């Protein structure tokens, strides 16, 4: 049995090495801008660039709009499926898995060809970008909300509220939302993490965002891109930490990957 433990430790430590070495290297690299000593010069330069704030601000805006649209689309749908249409579940779930079948770059390709010219020239507005982000967030958001609705008896709660005279708005606002708050938060933060680092949609549709900005300074400067990358990792890390923190003890959230 002892021999087993040695191998377990070996693989475990190798996994940690694979995980932490690139992160540590990025941090170390970002501090080496001035030869011979560790400074925060790369960070100073990053913060001195007005386009840093601009692209960051745009990404914040995109993520907020995406989250709102995604919630409006997913929550009523998932709720309705649980309450009235359990037999629609396979169809809805199939749709939420479609972003996996159509990779981001292919989806942009299709959307640009379809909505990029009159009569439906939507690519001149951020609509296509938001649509793309909502599609990206769909698997995560739906799974999170679905898991939340599964965990509470939403049907009985709804009926109880209705027999006490609540209208639909009150049911949603005071009964459904508070009960799936944890699930909503995990969907929201996952969507936030995805949109804040997203590159494919923003770059190919030509909208300013944090992802394309990092890529762009990467081709112009050394050290600063790594400094910004450290910040980007920080955003992802904090978002996931919040999800894992609010979701302690909640049913595990499945991960379906999209958009690399």
């Amino acid at each position, binding site marked *: 049995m002892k021999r087993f*433990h040695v*191998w*377990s*430790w070996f*693989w*475990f430590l190798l*996994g940690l090495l*694979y*995980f932490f*070495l690139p992160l*540590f*290297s*990025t941090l170390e*690299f970002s501090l080496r801008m001035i030869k011979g000593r560790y400074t925060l010069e790369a960070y100073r330069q990053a913060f001195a660039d007005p386009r840093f704030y601009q692209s960051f601000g745009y990404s914040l805006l995109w993520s907020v709009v995406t989250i709102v649209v995604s919630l409006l689309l997913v929550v*009523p*749908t998932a709720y309705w499926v649980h309450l*009235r*249409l*359990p*037999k629609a579940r396979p*169809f*809805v*779930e199939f749709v939420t*898995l*479609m972003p*996996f*079948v*159509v*990779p981001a*770059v*292919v*989806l942009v*390709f299709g959307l*640009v*060809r*379809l909505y990029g010219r009159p009569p439906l020239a939507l690519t001149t507005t951020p609509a296509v970008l938001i*649509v793309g982000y909502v*599609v990206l967030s769909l698997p995560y958001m739906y799974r999170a909300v679905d898991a939340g609705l599964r965990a509470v008896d939403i049907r009985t709660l709804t009926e109880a509220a209705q027999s006490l005279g609540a209208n639909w708005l009150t049911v949603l606002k005071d009964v459904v939302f508070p009960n799936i708050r944890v699930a909503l938060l995990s969907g929201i933060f996952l969507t936030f993490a*995805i949109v804040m680092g997203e*590159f*494919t949609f923003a770059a*190919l549709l030509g909208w300013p965002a944090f*992802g394309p900005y*990092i*890529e762009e300074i*990467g081709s112009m400067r050394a050290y600063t*891109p*790594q400094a910004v*990358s450290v910040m980007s*990792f920080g955003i*992802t*890390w904090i978002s*996931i930490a919040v*999800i894992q923190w609010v979701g302690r003890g909640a049913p595990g959230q*499945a991960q*379906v*990957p*999209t*958009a*690399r």
Partner: protein
Amino acid sequence: MDHGLHGAPPVTPEESTHGDAPQARPPRRQFSWTWAGLAPFFLFAFLFLVLPSISIFIRSFESSDGGFTFQNIVDIFAKRDIRNAYRMSLEVSVVTALGGAFFGFLLAYAVCLGGLPKWARSFLLSFSGVASNFAGVPLAFAFVATMGNAGLVTRMLESLLNIDIHAGGFTIYSFWGLSIVYMYFQFPLMVLIMAPALDGLRREWREACENLGGTSYHYWKHIALPILLPTLLGTAILLFGNAFGAYATAYAFTGSFLNLVTIVIGAQIQGDVLYNPGLGNALALGMIVIMSLCMLGYIWLQRRAARWTR
């Protein structure tokens, strides 16, 4: 992990109260109105997922002058550049899916059954949750800082062991370099999916095997592996698709240097680099077809896996 695809719809009160009890709710007749509640969702999916895919499909069979042709589909296999792009994408995906599945399985095994302390397990699962979400531009730059020309590992190998990894003409901006980068988000996903599956192996199964005189070898060959196999294969397929559709990471890491299908499609969006819009569509269609096959395989294996996890 519950992907819910196999969930039979729960028996609703309407269906179960066919007895003589007074019906609290009469069965609804407004069938269409119930479905109308899902209209916004399905309309969204139709407009922004289905329609673009249909449009790609139709335009794949369009020649430059707008007529019908099979030439674009033929060209995917006939043109060397495009065939090479597909080969490169498939190779990177297969290598990182197998590598990620192998490494991820060993890691999951180590923390679930390998006798490591409990904290190791929760630690690894937490960080796998984060790492599987690290992707795209920052990940590419992280690996430039790790094993690029001035990267930490490159410098350490040089100063400590006097090995120049770039000496033999090796460059990280290549097939193997990209595979190492992809592995970073591949193996954590495997860990996340395998850990619950390994937890699902019941102690009784092993005990039953031992009572019948079976060894550890028999247990794995006849019990554990057959049970885990659908999950293993399903996740490997998931990892394959994960790498196959990747664009941002590859683009930021190698620019347009590596000839991947996603990179070619990205270039085709920004300008008709293939000098043939139909061929661009056919290229995208090929990706959808391959990803659809992946998804079908995954769903099928997921159903098989679910037999044992319930």
